[in-house]
């Protein structure tokens, strides 16, 4: 990566250089390998390593320096209806405290480990701690059950950026917005029946659409709704500061 730098001459003629970090490139493609396959008369491209358009901020600074992510791109992981928070992060892992950075990472490594055996592909491969699926596609009532904030936190810590569900349970939706860990988007159609785990998808938030590159289909997403301002501000604390509900920090 090239960084621009400037050189200035100090009074005692020593060189001082300060590097001005170049604005992060919009595309940061690190393809591990490209594979072209043809099937049904269509060329399909599969990446072996996930491609991320905007690097995701870590939880620690997600509230302080939130870049509005307008596009998500990567592999999707598909789940059905009523995926409850016990499946997202089983209760035995709730002894991990999400505000503790080490335990935050550990929490991520258990994301979706509660899914039953009918899900033959794991969300996180064995011996891995991060997922290769940036986007989760779900049916209705995603995140139902317990109010545990560990659920969206685990998904975010694992490396998931966005969920596109048919509908959400309210506490999970709220927690996703409050923490800023994942973007909870809603689809108009039942994408869990249209997409398969491993499909390459792009989500364009401004255009409110999801493109499945593997199937070649496009789908409309619902507008972000009431909590849009909270998400845009960067979570409930940022929103409260912005609207004067609480004092700014320092």
């Amino acid at each position: 990566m090239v960084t621009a730098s400037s050189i200035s001459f100090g009074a005692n003629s020593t060189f001082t250089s300060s590097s001005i970090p170049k604005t992060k490139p919009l595309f940061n493609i690190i393809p591990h390998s490209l594979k072209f396959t043809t099937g049904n008369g269509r060329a399909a491209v599969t990446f072996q390593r996930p491609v991320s358009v905007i690097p995701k901020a870590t939880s620690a600074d997600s509230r302080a320096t939130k870049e509005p992510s307008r596009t998500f791109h990567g592999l999707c992981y598909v789940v059905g209806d009523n995926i409850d928070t016990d499946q997202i992060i089983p209760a035995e892992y709730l002894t991990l405290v999400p505000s503790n950075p080490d335990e935050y990472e550990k929490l991520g490594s258990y994301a979706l480990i509660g899914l039953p055996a009918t899900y033959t592909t794991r969300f996180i491969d064995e011996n891995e701690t991060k997922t290769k699926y940036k986007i989760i596609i779900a049916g209705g009532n995603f995140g139902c059950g317990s109010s545990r904030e560990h659920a969206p936190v685990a998904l975010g810590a694992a490396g998931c950026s966005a969920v596109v569900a048919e509908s959400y349970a309210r506490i999970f939706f709220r927690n996703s917005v409050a923490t800023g860990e994942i973007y909870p988007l809603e689809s108009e159609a039942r994408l869990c029946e249209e997409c398969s785990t491993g499909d390459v998808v792009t989500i364009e938030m401004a255009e409110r659409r999801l493109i499945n590159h593997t199937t070649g289909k496009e789908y409309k997403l619902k507008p972000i709704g009431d909590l849009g301002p909270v998400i845009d501000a960067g979570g409930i604390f940022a929103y409260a500061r912005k609207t004067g509900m609480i004092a700014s920090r320092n």
Partner: protein
Amino acid sequence: MELKSCSNDIVIFFLNSQTDIGPDCCHAIDIITCNYWPAMLTSLGFTVEEGNILRDYYNASSAPSLGGLTVIYQPQKDLGSFCFSSTSQFSVNKCKKSAVSKKIVSVMAPQQSERRPATTGSVKNAMTLTEKIFSRASEKPQLSPGDNVWVNVDILMTHDVCGPGSFGIFKKEFGENAKVWDREKIVIIPDHYIFTSDERANRNVDILRDFCMEQNIKYFYDIKDLGNFKANPDYKGVCHIALAQEGHCRPGEVLLGTDSHTCTAGAFGQFATGIGNTDAGFVLGTGKVLLKVPPTLRFVLDGEMPDYLLAKDLILQIIGEISVAGATYKSMEFVGTTVERLSMEERMTLCNMVVEAGGKNGVVPADGTTFKYLEDKTSLPYEPVYSDEKASFLSEYRFDISKLEPLVAKPHSPDNRALARECKDVKIDRVYIGSCTGGKTEDFLAAAKVFLASGKKVKVPTFLVPATQKVWMDVYTLPVPGSGGKTCSQIFEEAGCDTPASPSCGACLGGPKDTYARMNEPMASCLSLQVCVSTTNRNFPGRMGHKEGQIYLASPYTAAASALTGYVTDPREFLE
């Protein structure tokens, strides 16, 4: 047009510090009061203060003794209280009768009991119970479902699983040395992972303690001696039951908790819902939360409750009817003759599983039963609210309870409703009676009733986990009706149940691997999966431990009956 007849009077008052109100103005007040008061005056440009002056003058003028009024002008801070009481029906006649000319020297809104819009019922838009609580808590006299409002919180509860995370966020956002918004409105209740050797779980209770000491939190139900729960005088047990037993649930208030079953407290006619760590961290610092006003679904339960049914059956019926997402973002209001006859604990069971239907909160309007329960538990004042007659509900569901039969929710969803008698061929491996849903005193009395009626022993391991220390005591001391003075514990022992365990959430949500009664093994035999009938609230895969464990949710009657036969059993087998 009418009101302009007052303009002059008011202007003259402000100019001269005194005025006489003419008959036209009097008449105008009468009409406006009866029909158009709140919106009209403000829209005409009158300030609230001026409106109050007119109103209060009229009130005073209808009183028998009059003469000159001497009051002092004082602006009203609370702009919400400018609505008339619906009882003050002014009539034109009054105006004409009295000698119209009154001298006002100066004016003040007189000391009077605060006219809360929520209880006057004269607000232009009728509101539901939940909307009224939001209205009062957000200090907005008018609001509608869908509005996002900042609400004042009366009680915030957290426990050992979510407390540490919430405190972490609180400190990060408000500063290491920040103080909580109100040390008396926070209730910290360790209850989830208590009797375990898991070090992190134990550490989390220590984190709660450190925070409580640092912040001087008034209500912390601490536990230090894990080997003997009775050695901990402050320890209570399951948070939702402790909140009720300790008098923290009061009609009309806003109670939030870092637990989805916080909705249990709606049984007291208050708004109670679950929130996550981040929201809790926010509330810790500010005492406020941003909430969307939910529309209300009304459930009218009428009919005499058969003696083989319990509140658990009622809520399973409802969830089965509307599905696990049927009440998402909505309030569930329970009314009807059946509800009115439910005890507080039964109402708590009803509201407890509102979240299983996706509900934001559940409410049972406060009544004599509520007030009686609260008599010896709280001395803080409270003001119940009730849905207006003309309030709008999203939908209304009616049930004739006399026709219902005992139910179960089959694996793996709380809305997978089935008649208990239709599952009689399902062989089971264990029974669990406990949790905030089915581990209260009355739940154990109910189970004991079935064991007593049978007189036989259970055919499968039957785990009993009283929700709190008080429930445990009741199990060991309260006589079971019709038993000749035996206690629940004696009946349980005679039936071959496990000894009642230390009070906590226990295996309801699995927990650390060494949790008592956790479902750790998937298989009961080489051919069959483990099946548990449980009085708990969820049966999603892995809820009580192993992913493949099969959980049938049921009432304490049904659970006890099933324990006696070794199959899912309708309690009428023993109760009729």
